């Protein structure tokens, strides 16, 4: 017999599905199966059960080999590294809960750290654009209940957010959307013919890096003004048609992803996309939402927002909070040799940062706190495995629409393994002692 844990939250992507069911062995130690999740979500749960999981901290030795150390030793090393540093970088935060983020921020204040999250290589440009022009948006349930116009721009939910379309955006029948997918018009803008694009009513196969032009062309088209024959490779007839589709809906939304945030023009693309949305609100109701990747990258921006007023690139090294993307962002700091140690929390810069940045991390004292073995754990000096948030411990996470959801604990972590919150709390206590001395 197995126990069934219901209403489980999936700690993988920003869709943050909260309807998973997980069957657990009677003694509560093993996950047997995961229901309702997509393949990548289920994998996250099953992965925690891997036989070869690292369950004790490991310190890299002079000769490059790894030696197991105790958690006490790991706390001592981390606390000393941070307390001794002039300007440590505390990076990541996207795959942990808000409680750990809040305690981590207090730690950052104490040691004068620069705090940065994965938005720095992802939706940071979105956050800048919001600071320029704002953002008219809504919760995902509003899409479910009202939306009849859905635009996916530079994102591929079929692969990156697999249950997004079935739970919220395309297929479900809501209060005012009784016809489900039949009542919705779907537009995809993507240079590639993705699986998402294949299901669209209209696919605008924009030329790579021409999103800005196409977005401005839409704004022209809303007003029925003149356009050249092609913009970004799209015939003007199609642009007028898409403009018309958008204007004629009752409630619409643009979801956008890394295809526009990190392509040529970056935050200026998003400025335009938001202005497209603003314009549309003169005709109908329209919204825009970033497809946030990691399940709680949104939460780290909120925690830093309420504690210090900035969503990423948060520099606490001067004793007060500063923010200046390009200056206080992780890669820029690493490239300029401005940080003297690195603490990575629940993220993988080893995989997502440019090689030259990763080399710098390799050269610096670096602690990586992560349940997994990752490219980052390979380049750090100390790897601290911790309990999986959302599997072995609960905690708050913010969905891509900023809705906070409390994750559930499904099974116990391996014996003696702390959560990242517990580990951080102990580092805070130790740093207090070191600084007080």
């Amino acid at each position: 017999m197995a126990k069934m844990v219901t209403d489980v939250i999936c700690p993988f992507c920003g869709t943050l599905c909260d309807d998973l069911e997980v069957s657990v062995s009677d003694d509560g130690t093993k996950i047997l199966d995961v229901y309702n999740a997509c393949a990548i979500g289920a994998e996250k749960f099953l992965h925690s059960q891997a036989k070869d999981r690292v369950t004790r901290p490991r310190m890299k030795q002079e000769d490059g080999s790894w030696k197991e150390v105790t958690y006490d030793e790991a706390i001592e090393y981390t606390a000393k590294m941070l307390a001794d540093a002039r300007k440590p970088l505390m990076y990541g935060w996207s795959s942990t809960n808000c409680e750990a983020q809040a305690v981590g921020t207090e730690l950052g204040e104490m040691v004068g750290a620069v705090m940065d999250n994965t938005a720095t290589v992802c939706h940071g440009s979105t956050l800048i654009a919001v600071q320029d022009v704002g953002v008219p948006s809504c919760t995902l349930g509003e899409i479910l209940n009202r939306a009849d116009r859905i635009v996916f721009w530079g994102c591929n939910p079929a692969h990156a957010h697999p249950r997004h379309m079935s739970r919220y955006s395309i297929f479900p029948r809501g209060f005012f959307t009784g016809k489900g997918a039949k009542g919705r018009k779907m537009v995809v803008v993507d240079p590639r013919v993705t699986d998402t694009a294949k299901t669209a009513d209209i696919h605008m196969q924009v030329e790579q890096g021409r999103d800005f032009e196409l977005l401005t062309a839409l704004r022209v088209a809303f007003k029925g003004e003149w356009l050249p024959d092609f913009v970004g490779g799209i015939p003007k007839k199609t642009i007028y048609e898409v403009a018309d589709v958008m204007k004629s809906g009752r409630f619409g939304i643009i979801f956008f992803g890394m295809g526009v945030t990190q392509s040529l023009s970056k935050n200026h693309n998003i400025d335009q996309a938001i202005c497209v949305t603003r314009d549309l609100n003169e005709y109908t109701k329209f919204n825009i939402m970033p497809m946030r990747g990691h399940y709680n990258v949104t939460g780290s921006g909120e925690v830093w927002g309420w504690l210090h007023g900035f969503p990423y690139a948060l520099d606490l090294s001067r004793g007060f909070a500063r923010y200046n993307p390009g200056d206080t962002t992780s890669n820029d700091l690493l490239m300029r040799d401005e940080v003297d140690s690195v603490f990575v929390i629940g993220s993988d810069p080893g995989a997502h940062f440019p090689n030259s940045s990763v080399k710098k991390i390799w050269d610096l004292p670096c602690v990586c706190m992560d349940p997994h073995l990752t490219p980052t754990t390979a380049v750090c000096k100390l790897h601290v495995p911790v309990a999986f948030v959302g599997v072995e411990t609960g905690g708050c996470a913010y969905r891509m629409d900023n809705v906070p959801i409390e994750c559930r604990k499904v099974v116990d972590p391996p014996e003696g393994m702390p959560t990242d919150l517990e580990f951080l709390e102990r580092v805070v206590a130790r740093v207090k002692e070191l600084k007080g001395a």
Partner: protein
Amino acid sequence: MAEYLIKNGFVYDPVLGIKGDKVDVAVKDGKMVETSALSKPAEIDASGMTIMAGAVDIHAHVAGPKVCAGRNFRPEDKLFRATPMAGIKRMEGGFSVPTTLRTGYDYARMGFGFVMEAAMPPLYARHVHEEIRDTPIIDEAALPVFGNNWFVLEYLKNHEIENTAAYIAWLMRMTRGFGVKNVNPGGTEAWGWGLNCPTVNDPVPYFDITPAQIIRGLIEANEYLGLPHCMHVHSNSLGEPGNFTVTLDTLKQAEGIKARNEFGREQVLHHTHLQFHSYGGESYASKSFESKSKEVIDYVNSQDNITIDLGVVTLDETTTMTADGPFEHHLTELNHLKWVNTDVELETAAGVVPYIYSPKTFIAGAQWAIGLELGLYAKDPMRTFITTDHPNAGPFIRYPRVYKWLMSKAAREDMLDNVLKYGNTVRDRCYIGEIDREITLFELAQMTRAGPAKALGLEAMFGSLKPGMEGDVAVYPYNPETSEDPEDIERAFSNAQYLIKGGEVVVKEGQVVSNGNKRTFWVDCKVNENPQVERDIAEKFKRYYSVNQANYEVYAHHYVPNPYVIEVDATQ
């Protein structure tokens, strides 16, 4: 715990009827006590200073998703505003939308003990509580919004008060909420389609109920439950020229309804930031726009079951934020500044837009005047509370400046003569120039302590120095016998010499010296079982919410780590 004896100060306490007499004030084990109860108190010499109970803010937007959106999208609000950490005090930042840390410290420095977060979107309740948790020192609570909630719209369409009440009790428990907030009733649901309900008689699209029905129904449900606070409304057409008729129509919904509760509250309707709702004329032009503060407050004076707060414009660059989604869209169309909007499924919406109340414009000057006129024309200071609808009409740190304007005709004349560019036009279109009244320190204590505490149903805990009350005492470096310069008022009330909060010294010689022991207040209301409402809730979660019902409730532990629960029994 510690004992304190505060000696030689001028005490103002409306509950005890003390009007500036020198009375010793005693605190022991977190509570106010008789001086005879002390054994070995630490003495605080308050010679030449003013002593009042800790202040109570009935309406400010200080925690939650829209506040955080305001912070994150306005880096400019933090420029040159940072304060480094010092001792136990953490880093502070921000001006019109301060960080939670600064929020707690600023309120403490101003001598506040309790602050009500004025609008909590239920689906985002966790966010509100996380921010409240991370706001040091002050006790706080939050009002969930109900006026555009689909359950409420459906029940009140048929005047189902009992079902509405059962739903309210359930939602307050789910969200750890304190009372019933009602923002732009019906209009925010209409905003789901880009529309609005400008008057109390415009039916809500699809739901086919009028704002008037929502307002009256929520008052009745609130009294059915006997909650500590009354229904708290921000009426339709905020900020619109000519809106005073809508305001009067809203206030009239309370006629004939009596307060029913065990908390000493006597009113059934609180109208917030009345300044934004007391406009005459047809446009913002000085030829047309005019103050209707007198007309509105005359009505309030004539009724005894209404309380109000002012929402005084402080003439700053600020950040507006409200669950009145259509209003914020209207505002961004007017000032063309950046605009955040979030529509929340089945419940509400919110918008955020920066705004500059420039003393160089007629309209900002007129708004400034109207807020003050309301405070000066109000007959009962126990029903009239000082706010800036922080941060909408101005940041809460400007309260002491508002006190100065209310307490000094000279300070007002100086504004009209020397600061406002269109001071004479403002005199012409508003009543401000005709008013001689100056609010006294005793009245100030009513408007910032005893009054709001009573309206929130918290008169047994806050608002007075009576033995048994919470040990919240503020000592201000203001000498009522010798101070003549109105600037002294602003300076003194901006930075208390001492604040004792819950019996602990948190501000000492003007400096924050403790992070306190803040609590989150919420109201747990028991109602009879109501299978229909339970079924409706289950059904709506299954079909229309994007989260499961089992994942909706805000549990204590890290969201409300230090709760103060007020229990209400509405089963009879």
